[in-house]
């Protein structure tokens, strides 16, 4: 008996893995994201490297406000007139010019930025901030404060969040990192369920409409066939997923490494241990994020991910199999898709609106416990840390959930797979469920 399920699993698995389209999708999909990332980085970098691009001419009629060049923009003070500066911009020698007319420092009005193209919001903001700081500095200076005290006043603030562990252990957390992980894991499970659920449905419809099923039912129980198909296709998904993990991490580290953003782990640990005056703010942030990534319990994350990945797939896979068995063609399947799409959509939207926003709210709790939404919603919570009691309850309900849907789907499948030409609606499905 189990041997026959294995035969079906093997067929379903090999029939898909051997296809050229599987190979293409498996290899190309993970390349897409790093490629896009790399492309953006490349464009951004080549954008910044141009000479004239980041030089801004300042025409200051007060001869007072000297802005300091940052790593993004260089300010040049050639003492030109407005007309001359305009010409330079038009000739492409400057990105733009900032005109500071004679003004009253208490009411600075009339400051204008000229450029050939529309400046980005970030440029406008950073110019405003620079000027504001300059004005404040001058005001403070004129009120008699020592410039040295002034420079010592500049403080960099960075809030760290720490989760109090159960044994009093503390670990550093970072919402951004947790958010990212929850977001990715949730979306992956959502996509996986849809893509592979559909494959189950298509496969069942193929067997039904081509009457292959009529040859198979004499040797196999319909339930064996259904389970074999669900497990086989699930195995295809897992294979694809594992290959992706491998490829994405390989390609991503290549891309990041190429752009010089990667540092050997040892070096980072050394740097984070000591004060390094040479390191700027950015690298400090980077080290922190790195620490936080290290602090995430990856073992727990991977294990829970696999549980919800498989559990969610089995739960919905049974639905898809039942739908495939009930209809004659994919176009008829539409009417039965609601019970599948609605809870998944709720889970998906819940993930963004509630779970990632506040992983411990009441809505998040319920979304991550109810089996129909938990595979997507719980993954949004796991990286933030979930009490084990809640996790256990959620997993228990998920397992009961898929046992239940499989049992129900088995009944519908058994009858539906051999029924042709009858218009099947919810009423008929209900009758099938009751009859066995």
């Amino acid at each position: 008996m189990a041997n026959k399920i294995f035969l079906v699993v093997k067929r379903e698995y090999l029939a898909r893995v051997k296809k050229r389209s599987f190979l293409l999708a498996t290899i190309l999909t993970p390349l897409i994201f790093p490629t896009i990332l790399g492309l953006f980085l490349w464009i951004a970098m080549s954008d910044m490297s141009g000479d004239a691009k980041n030089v801004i001419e300042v025409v200051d009629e007060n001869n007072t406000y000297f802005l300091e060049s940052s790593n993004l923009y260089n300010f040049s003070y050639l003492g030109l007139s407005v007309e001359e500066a305009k010409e330079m911009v038009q000739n492409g020698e400057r990105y733009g010019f900032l005109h500071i007319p004679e003004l009253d420092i208490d009411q600075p009005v009339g400051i204008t930025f000229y450029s050939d193209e529309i400046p980005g919001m970030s440029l406008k903001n950073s110019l405003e901030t620079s000027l504001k700081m300059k004005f404040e500095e001058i005001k403070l200076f004129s009120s008699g404060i020592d410039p040295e005290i002034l420079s010592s006043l500049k403080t960099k603030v960075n809030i760290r969040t720490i989760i109090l562990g159960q044994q009093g252990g503390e670990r550093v957390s970072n919402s951004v990192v947790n958010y990212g992980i929850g977001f990715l894991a949730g979306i992956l499970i959502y996509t996986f369920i849809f893509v592979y659920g559909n494959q189950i449905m298509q496969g069942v419809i193929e067997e039904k409409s081509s009457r292959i099923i009529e040859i198979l039912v004499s040797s196999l129980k319909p339930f064996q066939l259904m389970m074999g198909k669900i497990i086989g296709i699930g195995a295809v998904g897992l294979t694809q997923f594992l290959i992706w993990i491998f490829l994405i991490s390989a390609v991503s580290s290549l891309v990041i490494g190429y752009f010089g953003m990667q540092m050997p782990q040892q070096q980072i640990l050394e740097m984070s241990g000591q004060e390094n005056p040479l390191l700027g703010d950015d690298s400090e942030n980077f080290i922190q994020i790195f620490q936080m990534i290290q602090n995430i319990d990856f073992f727990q994350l991977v294990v829970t991910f696999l549980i919800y990945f498989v559990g969610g797939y089995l739960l919905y896979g049974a639905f898809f199999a039942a739908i495939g068995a009930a209809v004659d063609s994919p176009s008829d399947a539409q009417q039965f898709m609601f019970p599948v799409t609605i809870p998944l959509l709720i889970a998906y939207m819940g993930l963004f609106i509630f779970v990632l926003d506040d992983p411990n709210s009441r809505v998040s709790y319920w979304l991550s416990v109810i089996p129909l939404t938990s595979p997507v919603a719980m993954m949004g919570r796991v990286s933030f840390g979930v009490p084990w009691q809640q996790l256990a309850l959620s997993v228990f309900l998920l397992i009961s959930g898929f046992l239940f849907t499989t049992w129900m789907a088995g009944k519908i499948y058994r009858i539906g797979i051999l029924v042709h030409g009858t218009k099947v609606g919810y009423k008929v499905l209900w009758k099938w469920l009751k009859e066995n």
Partner: protein
Amino acid sequence: MEILKVQSLYKAYGNHIALKDFNLSVEQGVVFGLLGPNGAGKTTLIRIVNQIIDKDSGEINIKNEPLRMHHVRNIGYLPEERGLYKTMKVREQLLYFAQIKGLKKKDAQQKISLWLEKLDLKQWQDNRIQDLSKGMAQKVQFIATVIHHPDLLILDEPFSGFDPVNAEIIKNEILELKNQGTTIILSTHRMESVELLCDNIALINKSQKILDGPVKTIKEQAKANLFQIKMVLEDQVSIPPWGDVEKHENHISFKLSLNGQNPNDLLKNLMQYGEVFGFEEIVPSIEEIFIQKINESHGK
């Protein structure tokens, strides 16, 4: 022994009665023809026997035991609408079906090779079904049906989709299987195609069996003792009262009933009038018998 016995079988789909008070008995080792027009109930019967659908009432016995799922495993079934996994290769597919039907891998491989050779498909074994012609796919399906050497073979419209050459090949394979002891039930609406193949037949029309028995007996019974006669008359002018006489260029032809005489006496009688060069008993084809039976039942 009866390999299949069906008693007072009844099946309805909603308001439509598919089979009504249906009885059938198939002896082991024969080729049994299930004949009737489309929609007569042939496929319903076959599906019930294969446990694809449930009967409403009645009894079905396989070798004197009530039909169970394990009996179905000894049935080879070729459905009317052929189904194979289109993207699977020929050999892979046959191996899958053989293993599902309980054959060991090694044993299955051997049998597959044998059959591929036999049906001239060897060079196609690594092609996908979708790249094969319809006739070739049909042959693959036929192999899938017989690969596990079932006791009972049920073929629904086995010759549809075959060209005459391939139909002949399949016909010979069926006869060979019969010689090996397999019982074969053929279902078809093309009665002329199986007349020579079947030992026994059942005629089905509108969910009921209207006639069954050995082909020979049925034909024997359907004979009206009519003879088709061709002769040249000595006296061309006065033709004896022989009914509808067709005049040809230099001979006449007509049908004559024995009327209680034996054929030799009739022939002697005829020879007095001239030279007889055609004297043949008219045996109706199964199709003619079928039509006649239907008309009789309408006449009632």
